[in-house]
């Protein structure tokens, strides 16, 4: 524990130094709490403190409350935590949701890589800009509408099965399967993963690649031994984002996966609906937030591990 903290302290100044060497050289003003500084500094602290930190703290607190006759009562009981984690299906669902998140991270990273590689190295700057624009577009279409649209594509009498019918296959069950859920996760993550991979690949030093080629390194070996290690930070970040988004997603597993088997998000909603048991829902929610924070920090640690060791 102490060692981990020490490591974090070592990491911190270097990380910030890397990002803002220039402003450090020119010297950032130490905060003097005059009216001007308070005016600009306090809105974030006030708003996020009141409406982000306080709700999160309340969520943790509520996981220790009890429910009597369908009414919430302030309490300090560990019964919700013990009760939830003693149930086999909660543990199963936790493991399954972790697996789905990991699956989404791996699948979207693998599918994205050739595309981001091509955009980074094999296209003109104009094409790349167009590609980036096209990849940003989906963020501004409603995710629910896109999932609704996939329902029409994947359902038994939907568009894909109609096409399959013309060539005499099917109908193939795609809706309400894991395949459907993964299509939903890809809809959610793929544009972001391609973009993040693309940005990190664009920063790979071209002379490294040329050097590898000149030294007789083949195409695939260059990708594996030169390009992927150089772009490691961005690739890990992209996969982490895919995990974070899919782990917490509610719409895809419900609308494309058919809610069975459930994920943690579905479990939360069911827990609230059945018997109004908010404290138990809070237990799952806190578990999810803690899991995401642990995963994010672990990923960051691995992403920057090599860099830290070198400096």
């Amino acid at each position, binding site marked *: 524990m102490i060692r981990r903290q020490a490591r974090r302290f070592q990491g911190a100044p270097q990380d910030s130094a890397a990002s803002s060497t220039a402003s450090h050289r020119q010297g950032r003003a130490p905060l003097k709490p005059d009216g001007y500084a308070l005016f600009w500094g306090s809105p974030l602290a006030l708003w996020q403190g009141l409406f982000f930190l306080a709700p999160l703290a309340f969520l943790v607190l509520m996981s220790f409350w009890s429910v009597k006759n369908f009414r919430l009562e302030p309490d300090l009981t560990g019964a919700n935590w013990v009760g939830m984690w003693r149930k086999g299906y909660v543990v199963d669902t936790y493991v399954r949701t972790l697996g789905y998140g990991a699956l989404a991270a791996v699948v979207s990273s693998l599918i994205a890589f050739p595309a981001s590689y091509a955009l980074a190295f094999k296209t003109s700057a104009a094409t790349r800009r167009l590609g980036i624009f096209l990849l940003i577009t989906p963020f501004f279409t409603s995710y629910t509408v896109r999932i609704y649209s996939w329902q029409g594509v994947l359902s038994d009498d939907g568009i894909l099965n109609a096409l399959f019918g013309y060539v005499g296959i099917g109908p193939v069950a795609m809706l309400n399967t894991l395949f459907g859920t993964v299509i939903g996760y890809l809809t959610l993550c793929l544009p972001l993963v391609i973009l993040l991979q693309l940005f990190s690949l664009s920063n790979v030093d071209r002379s490294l690649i040329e050097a590898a080629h000149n030294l007789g390194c083949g195409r695939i070996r260059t990708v594996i031994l030169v390009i992927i290690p150089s772009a490691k930070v961005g690739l890990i970040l992209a996969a982490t984002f895919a995990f974070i988004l899919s782990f917490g997603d509610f719409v895809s597993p419900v609308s494309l996966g058919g809610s069975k088997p459930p994920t943690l998000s579905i479990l*939360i909603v069911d827990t609230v609906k059945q018997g109004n048991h908010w404290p138990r829902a809070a237990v799952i929610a806190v578990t999810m937030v803690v899991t995401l924070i642990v995963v994010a920090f672990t990923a960051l640690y691995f992403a920057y591990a090599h860099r830290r060791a070198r400096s």
Partner: protein
Amino acid sequence: MTVDRLIRRMLRAYVVIALGFVFVPIVISFIFSFNSDRFPTLPLGSFSTEWYEAIFSEGQVPVAFRTSLIVGGAVALLSTFIGFAAAYTDFRYRFFGKSVYMSLALLPPTIPVLILGLTMLMFLSRVSLVGEIHSVVIAHVVFCMPFAMALIRLRLSQMDPDLERAAWNLGASSWRAMLGVIVPFALPAILSALFLTAAVSFDEFMIAFFVGGVNETVPVRVLNMMQGQVSPRINAVGSLVFAISMTLVIVAQFLLMMRRPGRPMLRRT
């Protein structure tokens, strides 16, 4: 050399396929919003605008559009102001606990929206702030502000901090320097942050669903329609939302590219 060309072609084809996957649901939704058939399948029926007429004759959708516009506008103003203040604080000051302070500005989008919505509902209902339009605004600002902060911080990082100092040395007060130097420099980012946060708020459905109560925004209406029956009206609403969001984004993009005031003022990179 021919192998190189072949690989290049295959990779480009792959990019087209990947983009195709991303755009399939968007395009299909658009096509079927003009299709006369009730169920989305092939072959297509005839061209029809009945679903667009249906959503505008049904009272709830126009009301939802109105709610979305009010929420989007308020969220854009508030989150851009708070985002700008935070970005400027990060740009100008160093202080104890700064990394914690900045994580307040970056963490919210990494928390699943389901949990954010649920948590907000639990908390806001305790302090009697739930089920109103301003509840949605409060919750959306938490979620949208980080985007504004990131955008404006990026712009400020292109500015030489000495510019502000020069203004002070020439006798300008902190406030005067803010209005005369910082704000004009950051203006393109401020404007695009306004449009971007409006667009993010316009699309967000989970938090709005939990804390909004009967005040449905457009995506919440879509969600409720989806839980009902299959209806191409969803496609029609979706295509409209897409058109509005894209307009906002393109305007934001245009503003960001249009004005690069004081190119020579940029720090050498």
